[in-house]
């Protein structure tokens, strides 16, 4: 399952917003073909880590290595053209572009002429998007927007997919569908996924491994099952998620 060298790793990454520190020396590793999840309370720094990997904001100290290359100080657009894609917090669909145009934007950096193929692939994953392809992004429902955000990220055929809270604000059925898609992509295509989630129960069951972040630091790590079994994790992050899953 895990190769010897991680596809992505960070070493002692510290990120600041002005003078306020948000990440206090983060070490994580994501191996090729893995689903790794990052859980933590609101304001822990999860989205900050996702964005720091993408170079916005840049890490003030530490190192981020993707596929053997130090990307810590590259500008965002250079990082993203190296087969990393992110579906960011808040979805960030271009509101005045159609679904199709949003997907075309996702394919911006893929220059190998596989657009039709990639388009059919995401339409197979999310048939709803196909029906709505001429609708403007801003008028989609929240769930449709989330599907579009993931589909857009997939259009560049990334090796590493960063997903920031794909389940936020969605009905349990849609959450299930989205987690199903992530699982499927990982199983059939070996897509590597780094997933930030509030919905810790679902995330830890889906992921091979997980990290727990508290106040800008990684405090725990282990396989999904291990973390699910830890009493601290259950107490802090799971009670809500379990109740929801039990319904």
């Amino acid at each position, binding site marked *: 399952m895990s190769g010897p060298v991680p596809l992505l790793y960070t070493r002692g990454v510290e990120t600041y917003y002005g003078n306020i520190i948000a990440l206090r020396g983060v070490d994580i590793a994501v191996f090729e073909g893995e689903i790794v999840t990052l859980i933590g309370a609101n304001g822990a720094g999860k989205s900050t880590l996702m964005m720091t990997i*993408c170079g*916005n904001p840049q890490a003030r100290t530490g190192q981020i290595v993707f596929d053997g290359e130090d990307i810590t100080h590259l*500008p*965002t*657009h250079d990082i*993203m*053209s190296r087969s990393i894609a*992110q579906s*960011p917090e*808040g979805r*960030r*669909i*271009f*509101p*005045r*572009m159609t679904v199709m*145009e949003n997907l*075309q*934007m*996702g394919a*911006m*950096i893929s220059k190998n002429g596989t657009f039709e193929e990639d388009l059919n692939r995401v339409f197979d994953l999310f048939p709803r998007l196909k029906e709505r392809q001429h609708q403007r992004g*801003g*008028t*989609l429902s*929240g769930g449709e*927007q989330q599907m579009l955000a993931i589909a*857009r990220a997939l259009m*560049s055929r990334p090796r590493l997919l960063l997903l920031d809270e794909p389940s936020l604000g969605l009905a349990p059925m849609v959450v299930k569908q989205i987690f199903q898609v992530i699982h499927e992509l990982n199983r059939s295509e070996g897509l590597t996924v780094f997933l930030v989630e509030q919905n810790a129960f679902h995330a830890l069951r889906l992921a091979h491994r997980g990290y727990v972040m508290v106040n800008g630091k990684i405090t725990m790590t282990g396989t999904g099952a291990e973390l699910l079994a830890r009493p601290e994790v259950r107490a802090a992050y799971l009670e809500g998620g379990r109740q929801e899953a039990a319904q």
Partner: protein
Amino acid sequence: MEYFVQQLINGVTLGSIYGLIAIGYTMVYGIIGMINFAHGDIFMVGAFIALTVFLIMLAIGVTALPLILLIVLIVAMLFTSVWGWAVERIAYRPLRGSFRLAPLITAIGMSIALQNFVQLTQGARVKPLPPQIQGGVTLMQGDAETGAIVVQLSYMQIIIIVTTVVLMTAFSLLIAKTELGRAQRACEQDPKMASLLGVNVDRTISLTFVMGAALAAVAGVMFLLYYGVIDFYIGFLAGVKAFTAAVLGGIGSLPGAMLGGLAIGLIETFWSGYFSVEYKDVAAFSILAITLIFLPSGLLGKPEVEKV
């Protein structure tokens, strides 16, 4: 009636020039949310570059008018683009992310700097260009008995209107259909997300300035040919009117800029034709004030309902 038709033709011609300049205001506003007050002066620089190329061509004895026009257009667009690019690079990019008024202040500074630069190097007096394109088509014959005047559509007017229509069509297609146009709209709507999709936002912004400047250069060439004289101050008045056109049409909207340009050109021409030439600028500025008060998002700039 004849008088009306003639004014209509003149107004559309003038409106075309304003429309070409207005696109630069509207696109830059769309992408970085600032009014590039130096844009009118970029238009003025374009006119001076055109004049210089004209005079050089005439001096070295090139006589084929279509060839001269083509070279003047290309050179003016090229060099003016460099000026537009440089203004962004020097005065706006370093201030990206600082408080909102900062680039507005440097924009005014840039405007003054460009005017003074041209005034110093070209002199303060008006510079003439010998008439290049004369004649036209007579649409309605005059009649001494009824007092009807001759209605003329000059070749120059035809060139201006046709060029504008072609350029604006090409430009709209570029924005709507090409990858570059999509990247520009993406930067307009969410630059952070655009960069997450691999778009070089800074470069896209630079390109927007370059495009705006190139269109302003075309307007500069047309202005020079149409009026035959230019000075370092033409950028200010034309700039304010084109800006008014952009606001009237709905700032950020391309079709709005074209429509607004046309409207301002017509209003100005009819105002001077039927009321008084002295107050034509007042008419344009009154429209700016009225638009800002009663129709702040302009004719085509309707804010749309969005979930974000």
